[in-house]
């Protein structure tokens, strides 16, 4: 039982605990923060697995981008301090049972599979230079085509988001988002600090 294992167990517990809290929390803002912690935990796990580049990307994109986006949308669409409506208890129990069943089933499969031996024959080199050379090569192990396609996808997603979330044209149609803003009194919150 060396430090590496203890560290792993701690990080795993952190990830799972934060995840459970994220999905069960009744206040939406708290749920977003627990999600943030979970994602940071996953980044820690990547650091432990010595894939630092991925960990960095995780923090930059997920934590710094997506969670911030989620928090913005929470502010835009509802009263973040209030508690959310809860689901009927029957659905909760059924979903919990389904999740437990799923976990048990898949774990059973994993445990009984014999092919998961650690392959220590070659070293695992995941530094940035290596990643760059391999990803952008056009010959062996080259992922240049998906790389370019993903950039197209990002463009499409950007344009799509703007179009979908565009304010309606006619001025006399009320936009609920404006009304929510005034009720939230964001400026007073900030000024409090």
């Amino acid at each position, binding site marked *: 039982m060396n430090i590496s294992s203890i560290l792993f167990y701690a990080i795993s517990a952190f990830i799972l605990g934060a*995840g459970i809290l994220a999905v069960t929390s009744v206040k939406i803002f708290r*749920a977003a923060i627990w999600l943030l912690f979970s994602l940071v935990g996953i980044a820690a796990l990547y650091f432990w697995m010595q*894939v630092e580049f991925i960990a960095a990307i995780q923090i930059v994109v997920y934590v710094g981008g*997506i969670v911030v986006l989620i928090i913005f949308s929470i502010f835009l669409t509802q009263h973040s301090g209030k508690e959310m409506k809860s689901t009927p208890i029957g659905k909760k129990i059924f979903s919990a049972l389904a999740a*437990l069943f799923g976990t048990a089933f898949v*774990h059973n499969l994993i445990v009984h599979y014999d092919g998961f031996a650690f*392959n220590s024959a*070659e070293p695992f080199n995941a530094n940035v230079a290596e990643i760059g050379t391999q990803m952008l090569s056009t010959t062996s*192990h080259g992922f240049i085509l998906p790389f370019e396609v993903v950039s197209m*996808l990002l463009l499409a997603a950007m344009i799509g988001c703007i179009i979908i979330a565009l304010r309606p044209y006619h001025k006399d149609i009320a936009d609920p988002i404006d009304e929510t803003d005034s009720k939230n009194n964001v400026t007073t919150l900030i000024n409090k600090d």
Partner: protein
Amino acid sequence: MQEIPLSQILFVSTALFFIGMYGLFTRRNLITMLMSIELMLNSVNINFVAFNKYLFPNNLDGLFFTLFIITIAAAEAAVAIAIIINLYRSHNSIDVDDATEMKY
């Protein structure tokens, strides 16, 4: 590193996946459903990296997949937020049970 067998890392990712699934089934708010989906995507990322490191260390395909998934998850979250905002404009609520126009 050798002491933690692959199956334990896979257990972490499986558990995270099903936690995300529980959140997907249970939550009434569209934004919290989106958060659960992000958890599920992350569990898949852990899977890819672990497999790559433990079983196929000579190439980095798993890492590349993980990068792509992170990218696409970001794009998908943005589009989902846009849709939620659009839905909020028309229904004035983001409760998923209020958006049942596809009912029989």
